[in-house]
Structures are given as C-alpha cells and as structure tokens.
C-alpha cells in the first residue's frame, strides 16, 4: 500500500545502522503510518555511502534517493558523517548540472529516538518525488 493515492514510485534510502535505521525502527514499533515507496538499505555508517551509490540508483531506475545518518557530532564512529556531509553536498550540487532535479536527492540526519521525525521525513520526501514524477535519465525501458 502506498501512502499516497497514485502509483508507487521507487525511492532508495541509505540508512546508517546506528541512528537512522534505529529511527525507522522506532517509527515502525510506534506504528507511525508511512508511505511505502521507500526501499531501505542498511549501511554501517553514512560515511559508507559512496556518492556513486546515489548516482547508480538514479541511473538504474530509482526516482529519488534519501541518505540518512546520525546527527553531526553523534556518529557511532565519531567522524563518518562529517565525511559523508562533504561528499553528499558535493553530489547535491553536481546533480542539477547534469540535468537532474536536486530535490530527487536528499540527505539528512535522524537519530534512533526520532521516530516521529523519521515519519515526517519519509512522508515529505515521498510527496516531493510523487510531485516530480518518474525519472528516466537514459531513455531506456
């Protein structure tokens, strides 16, 4: 069931094991209703997220990509998300140059206790992607 009326879209989420994945779990345990367009991939740390993961996802059929990690200064490995922040910001600024709407990619910080915040992030991001419509970067089926 998609939380939104129309057809379900493909959104990929890279979530760090220690905060955001826990946050998503908290949202689930608390039974916060969320749209189901998001497919979650658990990574050890947001610092594990190679900007090319995002590019690869977008090129191969994802309509949007969400990356979420621990809040800055809260990283389980102390500095993983600081590196992630620089890399992801670089990518966020590169995408429009390629002709990809920067709104299709979002990175944020959600802690394990922020179940309600996680629900809001997923809701808002899914809504944005639905508004933007499907992405077909390379005109291939």
């Amino acid at each position: 069931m998609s939380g939104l009326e129309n057809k379900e879209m493909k959104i990929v989420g890279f979530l760090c094991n220690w905060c955001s994945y826990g946050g998503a779990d908290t949202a689930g345990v608390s039974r916060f209703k969320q749209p189901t367009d998001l497919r979650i991939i658990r990574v050890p740390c947001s610092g594990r997220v190679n900007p090319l993961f995002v590019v690869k996802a977008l090129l191969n059929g994802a309509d949007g990509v969400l990356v979420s990690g621990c809040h800055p200064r809260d990283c389980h490995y102390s500095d993983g998300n600081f590196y992630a922040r620089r890399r992801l910001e670089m990518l966020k600024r590169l995408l429009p140059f390629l002709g990809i709407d920067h709104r299709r990619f979002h990175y944020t910080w959600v802690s394990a206790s922020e179940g309600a915040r996680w629900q809001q992030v997923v809701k808002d991001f899914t809504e944005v992607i639905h508004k933007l419509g499907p992405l077909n970067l390379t005109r291939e089926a």
Partner: protein
Amino acid sequence: MSVDKLKDAVKQILNEVDIVIGYTEGFDKVHATPLFINTQDKVDQLIWDQRCVHNLASYLPSLKRKKVGVIVKGCDSRTIVQYIQEGLINRENVKIIGLPCSGVISLKKLLKAVDFANIDDITFEDNGNVNVKTEKETKTLSLMDIAPDKCKTCQYPTPLIYDILIGDPIKSDKPKESVYEDIIEFDKKSLEEKLAYWQKVFDRCIRCYACRNACPMCVCQDSCIAESREPHWISQRATLTEKFMFHLIHTVHLAGRCVECGECERACPMGIPVNTLKRKINLEMKELFDYVPGVNPDDKPPMYTFNVDELKIKEHKIG
C-alpha cells in the same frame, strides 16, 4: 624559449637522477612525444615549443621509487603539487625543471583550421603567430585560435613548483573570473536542456577509457572500479546508462582533485567535453571550502578532511 638552456639544465641534473622526462619530435611535424632520457647522448633529442602538449608529470606516481627529473609547464606543475598533497610522490625524489609557457596548440583545433589537410611543416613565431604549411597552402594562424580552452583562461603560465626555472616567469593576463565562465553559463540552462546535452555527448562515448588512462589523477591503475567484476559497477553493455555511469565514476573520483590539465579531453577520440563536470565540482569546492586543487602543497584535498562545523554547508529542507 631557449632549448639550449634546457638541454644544459638536463645534462646537469642527469648526474643526480635516474631518468629525465622531456619532449622530442614525434612521428610527424605536428606531434611531439615524451622522451625518456637516461644517457647524456639522448639530451640532444630534446625539443621545447608549442607542440609540447603532454602532461609529463603523469608518469611520476608510477616512478615513485626512482629519482626522476621532469620538465613541466605551468599547468603540469599543478599535477605535481596535487601529488604532493596526496602523498603520491616523494618530493625529494623529483627534480622539477619548470618552463614558463604562453600556450600550446590543440591538434584537434589545428587540423580543423587547415580543413584536415596533411601538414608538412609548422613553425612558431614569438609574437604568437603559427605558420602552417599544408599540401595545399601556407597559412598563418594565431596561436590563441588553435590553443586548447585551458590556455585561453590560464592562470598559472609559470610553474608553481620547480627546482630550476628556464626563462623568465610570465604573469597571467587573463581575468580570474574567466576560468569558470563557461560552466556558469551552462548552468543557467534548464534541467531538460542540460540533461539532453549530457545524453547527447555521453552517447558518443565508446568507453575506450582513454580519458581515464590519460588522467594524471586517475591513480587506481589496475583496480579501477570501471573494470572490476567484484563489485560490478558497470557492465559491458554499450548503453547510455553504462556510459553515463562511467563518466560519473571518473567525475566523482576526481572531486576536488582535478587539476584541469585537460589531458582527458585531449585524449578523447570522440570529442566529449570530459573535463566540464570536474570543473563544475572545482567551482563548488572553491565556493564551499575555498580550495583550488594543485596550488598549495600544504593544502589538504577537501574530500580527505572535514570541519566539525562546516561554515558553508547548510542543512537542506526537503523539496
């Protein structure tokens, strides 16, 4: 430009190093080719003029354990500075002969200017004129008309790092703002236009990987993820998706490292503006971290480090 002075300098340092890398005549009049000098008698084959387009610094990481002398132009010297920043060479093992340069030729532009006729001879004048003798005619061209784009906005005509400088230093007369003018102009187009442009140019790619092989900062060598099977980042299929992905691998791996030597574009047989995406990132790195690759040996590449409080990176709102 005195080639004799250069030869004297090379002869001198040849006693201290294993090999000196310079330029020599290529297979015809318009081509120069790299020359590896290990004996005194090879020194006389050296040439130095506007045909010396190659970035010879690219050889340094693979010769890391040897003592090497290298001849560099201003743009090439940025490669060395970047290598030092990233610890890819030992500074004490490298002897740098710097040559101030006021522009080189682009073979692609030269051939276009003479309508792809066979060139029998080419001579260069000090005032920037280039005399080309083809099978059909003799033509005088202006060097700046047939120079690569990087020369037109060159900020570093004199090497930034050297042990010996041959000739007088040259100051750049090109405005700083001109360097990224084309990038800023392109970015003003609509998303649809930009995407259509990249789809068109990347569709030409034949994935020969010449851009990667020529790139001085592509130092992964045989471990390039474009060719690895595990993980299998891109397949052998000749689709736009795979081509797009390859170019983005190159771009992202060079984020904040590209010294804009333009070797990728020179090597590209399909005329793809390979350097553009990297220059876009450089523009952002300048704005975000006030960082310019290959300028100061003591800098740290922005993706290798972080600040706990990033002054310029603001948290994004969704949408």
